[in-house]
């Protein structure tokens, strides 16, 4: 009976891990519309697909792991919508810049990054997510934002990274001090 129960425990553990992978895949499905938006707006299919695959993989692994990383990745996906949507909306709603070189997009990515960074730190504190979770949230938000900021090229990606830092660090310092 003990052997049978041990075998059952192994099967139960496998079932549990399968459930966790499935959870990861379900959450990673959110990347599909994000990638579709990026494909429509940015016109860089290779970079979009690569970014989407990396983002989906990170989300799946974080959700499978669960705990801090799982919660962090969910927060990151939500916060990352801001830098994803801002340049995409700008691009699709009137083409603010006519040429390929335009400072408006990097500024939008910077602004989106600041908002996303502040939001993710607030939400992480609110949901009691620790440092590991915040790192996961930042990574996921950065990757999600990348899909939108591809429209601005390398300058957009750099602006996004700077924005995330600018948004996150002061809020983090302020929350620590409080």
């Amino acid at each position: 009976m003990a052997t049978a129960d041990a075998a059952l425990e192994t099967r139960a553990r496998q079932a549990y891990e399968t459930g966790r992978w499935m959870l990861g895949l379900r959450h990673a499905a959110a990347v599909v519309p994000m990638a579709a938006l990026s494909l429509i707006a940015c016109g860089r299919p290779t970079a979009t697909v690569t970014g989407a695959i990396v983002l989906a993989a990170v989300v799946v692994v974080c959700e499978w792991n669960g705990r801090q990383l799982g919660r962090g990745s969910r927060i990151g996906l939500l916060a990352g919508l801001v830098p994803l949507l801002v340049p995409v909306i700008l691009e699709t709603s009137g083409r603010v810049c006519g040429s390929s070189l335009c400072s408006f997009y990097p500024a939008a990515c910077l602004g989106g990054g600041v908002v996303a960074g502040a939001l993710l730190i607030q939400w992480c504190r609110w949901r009691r997510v620790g440092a590991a979770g915040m790192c996961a949230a930042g990574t996921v938000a950065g990757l999600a934002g990348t899909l939108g900021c591809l429209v601005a090229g390398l300058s957009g990606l750099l602006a996004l990274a700077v924005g995330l830092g600018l948004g996150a660090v002061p809020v983090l310092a302020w929350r620590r001090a409080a």
Partner: protein
Amino acid sequence: MRLADGDRTAFHPVFVALLPLLRRFAARGLSPADAEDAAQEALLKVFRRATEFDRRRDALSWILGIAAYEIKTVRRRRERRREADAPIDLASRPAPAATPEEQAITADLDAAIEAAIATLSPLDASTLRAFAFDERPAGLPPATFRKRLERAIARLRARWKEDHGDR
């Protein structure tokens, strides 16, 4: 709750607590063998779906809900199997009836069954007759006879449905 969040250290204690609980719960409504099947299936489902657990709900009622559904499924499966296995008992047909009308009905039924059996392969027909008259062929292993009988009954059932519908 910790398990739903991905905390693997909670796995073993939850497993140890749940297994006897689910066994006892399943044993209330099923035979011992079926209860064990249902309890194990329910346990696996609970762990597979642990990530879907809503923290606002009561964990025990959620788990017992899954177990109750599994018990129902095992019961339904058992009933379906019993129906499928139930042989058409040729030997227990009504005895020759007393009234002329009943005799006519019995004769019609005999003829219809014979006609249906006649459309089967000789092996199926002889298997059904051997079963009806309790004359299992000598030297044939019981498991083989049972398998042949199952197939013959399934074919007879299909033929009967074709000719007479679900009556």
